[in-house]
C-alpha cells in the first residue's frame, strides 16, 4: 500500500476546512472587537470539532436551535460568514437585518430556528419545533445545542422530559466546555458527565470526545440514526473545552493555567491537522492551500461586513407585529 492509498472520506478534509473556517471567523470577530470595530460576542474557539462533527451527521431536513456560542454551528451548517459577520456588526446585510447581532441569529432557509441568549431558552423551544415538524409531516429531526451551564437550568429537565414522554425526535447536544460564563463547571455540579443524567428520563445518552471531529461525527451519525429511526430523543455530550474567555474581551485570568495548557495540547484543529498529515490524508501543500482559502473567505467576510450599511431608521419599528 502506498501512502497515497490511505482511505479517507471526503468529509475528513471538509471537516478540517470547516473547523479552520470557524476558528478563523471567531478570531476575526474577536480582533474586530479588540480593535473597537465590533460589539462583543461569545466565541466557540476550542469547540469547533463539536459543531462540525454534529453537522456532518445532519441533512437539510433537520432543524437547529443553538445558544450564545452559535457562530460555529451556523458556519458548519453552511451559513455565509459574510452575513454572520455583518449581523454581528449590526449591519442591514446580516441574516436578521442587524436586529439580532451575535445574540439571536436565525437562518430560516438553513433550518436554524433560533439562537437564544437566555441560557436554556433554546432547550425550551426544541420539543415544540420537533412536534411541529412531526405533525406537519416533516421527516427531519431537531438538534439543540446547549452547554453544561444550560444543563443546570430547570428548563433542561422540562424539555428533555417532554421530548422523552412525547417521543419527539430531538438530538440534545450538550457541549460540555467546562465553563459556565466565569465559573468552572465543577463548582456547579457533582456529575462529571451530563450524559449520565439522560437515563433518569429514559433517554439514551453518550459522551464523546468533543475535541475529536471524527469521533464526534461517528457518534452523531449513530445518534441521528437512532433519533430518525425511533423518533425518540437522544442526549449526546461532546466533552470539550472553551479556549477563550466567556465573551470578548475577557482575559480569562480566572482559568487555571495548567488546565488550560492541558486542553490546548488537545486543540481539536491542531491535533486533527497533525493526524491527517501523519496519515497522509492531506499533504502540507493541500493544508496550506486550505488555510489560504479560509483566510481569503474571512478577509472577504470582514470587508463585506465593514462596508455594509447599517439598517435604515425605518427598520426601528418593523417586525414588532405581523
Amino acid at each position: 500500500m502506498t501512502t497515497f492509498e490511505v482511505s479517507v472520506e471526503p468529509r475528513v478534509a471538509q471537516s478540517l476546512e470547516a473547523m479552520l473556517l470557524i476558528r478563523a471567523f471567531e478570531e476575526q470577530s474577536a480582533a474586530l472587537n479588540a480593535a473597537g470595530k465590533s460589539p462583543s460576542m461569545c466565541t466557540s474557539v476550542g469547540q469547533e470539532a463539536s459543531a462540525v462533527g454534529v453537522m456532518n451527521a445532519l441533512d437539510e431536513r433537520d432543524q437547529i436551535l443553538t445558544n450564545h456560542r452559535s457562530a460555529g454551528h451556523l458556519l458548519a451548517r453552511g451559513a455565509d460568514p459574510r452575513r454572520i459577520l455583518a449581523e454581528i456588526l449590526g449591519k442591514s446585510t446580516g441574516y436578521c437585518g442587524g436586529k439580532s447581532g451575535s445574540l439571536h441569529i436565525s437562518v430560516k432557509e438553513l433550518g436554524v430556528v433560533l439562537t437564544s441568549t437566555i441560557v436554556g431558552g433554546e432547550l425550551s423551544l426544541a420539543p415544540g419545533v420537533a412536534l411541529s415538524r412531526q405533525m406537519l409531516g416533516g421527516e427531519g429531526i431537531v438538534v439543540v445545542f446547549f452547554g453544561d451551564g444550560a444543563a443546570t437550568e430547570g428548563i433542561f429537565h422540562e424539555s428533555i422530559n417532554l421530548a422523552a414522554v412525547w417521543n419527539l425526535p430531538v438530538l440534545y447536544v450538550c457541549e460540555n466546555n467546562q465553563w459556565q460564563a466565569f465559573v468552572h463547571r465543577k463548582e456547579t455540579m457533582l456529575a462529571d458527565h451530563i450524559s449520565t443524567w439522560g437515563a433518569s428520563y429514559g433517554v439514551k445518552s453518550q459522551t464523546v470526545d468533543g475535541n475529536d471531529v471524527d469521533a464526534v461525527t461517528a457518534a452523531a451519525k449513530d445518534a441521528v440514526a437512532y433519533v430518525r429511526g425511533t423518533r425518540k430523543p437522544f442526549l449526546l455530550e461532546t466533552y470539550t473545552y472553551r479556549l477563550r474567555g466567556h465573551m470578548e474581551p475577557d482575559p480569562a485570568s480566572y482559568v487555571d493555567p495548567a488546565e488550560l495548557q492541558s486542553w490546548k495540547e488537545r486543540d481539536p484543529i491542531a491535533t486533527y491537522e497533525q493526524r491527517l498529515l501523519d496519515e497522509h490524508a492531506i499533504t502540507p501543500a493541500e493544508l496550506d492551500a486550505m488555510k489560504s482559502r479560509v483566510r481569503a473567505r474571512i478577509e472577504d467576510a470582514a470587508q463585506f461586513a465593514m462596508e455594509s450599511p447599517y439598517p435604515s431608521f425605518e427598520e426601528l419599528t418593523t417586525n414588532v407585529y405581523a
Partner: protein
Amino acid sequence: MAEKSYRDAIRDAMMEEMDRDPNVLIMGEDIGVYEGTFRITAGMLKKYGPKRVIDTPIAEAGMVGTAVGMAMLGLRPIVEMMTVNFAIVAADQILNHAAKVRYFSGGQVDVPMVIRGPHGAGVQLSAQHSQSFESFYAHFPGLKVVAPGTPADAKGLLKTAIRGRDPVMFLESAALYGMKGEVPDDTNFTVPFGQSRVAREGRDVTIVSYSRMMQMSLLVADKLSKEEGIECEVIDLRTLRPLDMDPVYASVSKTHRAVVVQEQWKPFGAAAEIAASITENVFDELDAPVVRVTGEDVPMPYARNLELLATPHEEHVAAAVKKVMYR
C-alpha cells in the same frame, strides 16, 4: 344569535377554529381527560383526540416554550393556563421568546399562539391565585393582550387571536365564566383587535374599563341613571394591546369627565396608562382630573371579609363618578 355563557363561547371559538384549521391545537394541564379545571375544554379530547388536545406535565415553561417552537414552525397552539397566574413561571418563554423572535429574526418567523385562561380575583384563592396581569403583559412590545367582557367578545376576540400571526395573552375573567349573553352563531364571526366599543351611551361621565370591571361599571351606570339621573358612558376597551383610545377621547370630549376602573393594583397599572393618555391627548376637554378605581395595593388576602375589601365594588365606582362631577 343564541344565548351562550362566556365559558361556552370560549369553547365554541376554539372548536370552530379547530374544525376550520387542522393546525390549531390546544395544550395544557388537565385539559384532556379531566376536561379542564373550569370545564372549558369539555368534550374536546373526545372530538379531536390526544394529538390536538394535549395534556401536559405540570411544566409551564416547558409547555409554553414548546408552543413557541410549534408556532415558529407553522402550528397554531393554544395554551390553556390552569390560571393565568401560572404563566409567570413561563415568563422567559413569553417575554424573551414569543414576544421577540419576529423582531430579532428580522421578520423571518410568525408566532401564531394564544395563551389563555382564567384571570383575576376569585373567591378565597389567596395571593398566588388572584392576580391581574394585563398591564404586565401589555408593557411588552410583541405581545397582544385581550380582556373580553362579554360572551360575544370572548368568542369573537378568541377567534381573531387564533387566526392571527402574533402571540396573544387572552385573559378570561374567571368570575364571568357563567355569565350569559347573545353570541352570533356564524362560524366566521370575529371581533377585530384594537376596536374599543361604547358599551353604554351617556352624557355626563366617561367610565373606561374592560373585562369584569366593565360589566360592573354598566351596573353602576344603570343605578346612577335611575337613582341620581347621572348618565355615564361606558367604554369597553376589549384589547389593551393594541389599545384603541379614540373612542375614549371622543367620549371624554363629550362628557369632559373620566373614571378608569381596573381590578389590578393601582401603581403602574392599566388605568395609569389610560389616564395619562387622556391627559396627553384631550387635556383641554377635561373639567376634572381623571380618577382611578383600583384594587387595594396588597397581596390578595384569604379571609373573605378582607378579600372583599381588596377588590373594587360598585360603590367605589359610583363614588368616583360623583367625585369627577364634584357631587
